[in-house]
C-alpha cells in the first residue's frame, strides 16, 4: 500500500518537472531563423558546387585543360572541352560542363587540380524545374560573372 502511494507521488512529481522544462522553453525565444526573410551567414568553407576561380592577375580562369578533374571524378559528372588555338601553348578551355545532379561534392576535382583553378561556391539555395537547370557550364558562369 505504501509503495502504491510512493509510486503515485514519484510519478506525479516527474510529470510536473517535465512540464516545467517545456514551460521554460515557452518563455525562451525561438532558436529558429525565419528562413526566406532572415538568412544565416554561411561559413566561407561551405562546399557548394564547384566553380572556376577568377585569377586576379589575368582576369580569367587558370584551367590548362589537363583533364585531371574529368578523369578523377568518381561520379563522371565533369566534362572538360578544350581546343588547340594558334599562338598559345597547350589547349584552351572552351567549355567546362558540370552535371551537378550527379555530383557528390567530394572535392577530389578541387584537390587534383594542378593550377588551383577550381573552388567551391557558397551557393546553397538550389531549386529548379528541370534537371537541365543543374547542368552547369562553369566557363560561361565565370564569363557572366
Amino acid at each position: 500500500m505504501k509503495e502504491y502511494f510512493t509510486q503515485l507521488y514519484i510519478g506525479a512529481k516527474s510529470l510536473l518537472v517535465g512540464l516545467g522544462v517545456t514551460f521554460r522553453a515557452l518563455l525562451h525565444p525561438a532558436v529558429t531563423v525565419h528562413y526566406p526573410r532572415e538568412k544565416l551567414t554561411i561559413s566561407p568553407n561551405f562546399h557548394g558546387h564547384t566553380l572556376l576561380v577568377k585569377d586576379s592577375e589575368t582576369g580569367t580562369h587558370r584551367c590548362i585543360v589537363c583533364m585531371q578533374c574529368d578523369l578523377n571524378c568518381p561520379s563522371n559528372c565533369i566534362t572538360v572541352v578544350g581546343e588547340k588555338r594558334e599562338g598559345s601553348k597547350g589547349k584552351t578551355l572552351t567549355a567546362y560542363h558540370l552535371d551537378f545532379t550527379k555530383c557528390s561534392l567530394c572535392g577530389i576535382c578541387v584537390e587534383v587540380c594542378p593550377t588551383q583553378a577550381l573552388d567551391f561556391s557558397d551557393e546553397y539555395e538550389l531549386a529548379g524545374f528541370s534537371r537541365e537547370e543543374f547542368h552547369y557550364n562553369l566557363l560561361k558562369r565565370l564569363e557572366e560573372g
Partner: protein
Amino acid sequence: METVGTLPPQLLRMILSAVVVIAFVFMNGLLLGYLERKLAGRFQLRPGPMEVGPQGMLQMVADAVKLIGKQFIIPRQSSTTLFRLAPFLAFVPVGVSFIVIPLSSKLQVLDLDMGLIFIIAVMAFNMVATLVAGWVSNNKYALFGAVRSVAQGVAYEIPMLLSLVTVVLLTHSFSMRAMVLSQSHIWHVFMQPVAFVIYFIAGLAETHRAPFDLPEAESELTAGFHTEFSGICFSFFFLAEYTNMFFVCSIAVTLFLGGWSGPPLPWMEYSGAIWFMLKVYVLLFIMIWIRWTFPRVRFDQLLNFCWKYLTPIALLNLLITALVVKL
C-alpha cells in the same frame, strides 16, 4: 420583419441558437487549432505558423480552404454509407451538447434539469463515431484505433462520472446553472481537488489527447481511426476533437471553477461570458501544454492506470464526500 414577427419566440430562439452554436464551433476549431500549433511551436523553441496573415493567424483558414478543396476518397470495399456518415456522427453531438453550457447567467440555450447527464450522454456519442469510422475504413490500422478508442472510452467514463457525482452531491442538482450558482461562496475545486484532477485526466483520455492519444497514435497506427479520411471529412473529425476539448474544459469550469463568476469587468453585461471563456482557455492551454511534453502511454498501462488508480481513488473520494454531506 413581418415573417419574423409571426414566428413563435421559442422557435426563433432555437434557430438563432443553432446558428450561433455552429458558428461558434467553427470559430473555436480555428482558434484552438491556431493556438495549438502556435503553442506547439513555442514549446519547441520555434515560432510556429508565421506566413499566412499576421503572425500566421490565417493559417487555419488557409488549411480549411485546402481541406475543403481536396478530393474525398472512399476506400474500396468499405461501407460507403457509413463511411460518409461517420464524420457527421462525430460532429453533430458536439453541437447538441452546447445547449446546456451556461456561458453566463443569461447566455444559455436551455437549462435542463438533467443538464449534466445530458451533456455526458451526448459526448459519449463521439465514441460511436470513432468506432464506426475505424470499423468501416477497411484498414487494419484504423480498426486498431477504433478498438482502442472504445476500450479507452468505456474505461474512463467511470472515473469521470464518479468524480462529477461528488459535485452533484454538493449541489443537490444536475442543472448546470445550479452548479454555478452553488459556487458563489467557494469554488468546488477547493473542496474537491482530487475529483477535479481525476476529472481532468479522464477528460484528456475522453478527448484522445496526448498522453492518451492511443486511437490516433501516430507513430504506431499512422493516423489511427481517421487514416482513410481525407478532405472535408477529415476536418470534421478534427473539429469534433477540438470542440470536445472545449466541452470537457467547460464542464470542468462549470462544475469546479465557478463557471461565469468572477469580479465584474468594465463590460459589466458580458463579464460573465468573458470570465467563462478565460477559464476554459486556461484549461485548454494546460491540455495543449501536456500534449507537447509527454510521451504516449501504452495501451495496457492506460487501462491499468484507470482501474488501479483513478477508479478506486474516485470511488473513495465519492464515499468520503457522501459521508461528509450526510453528516
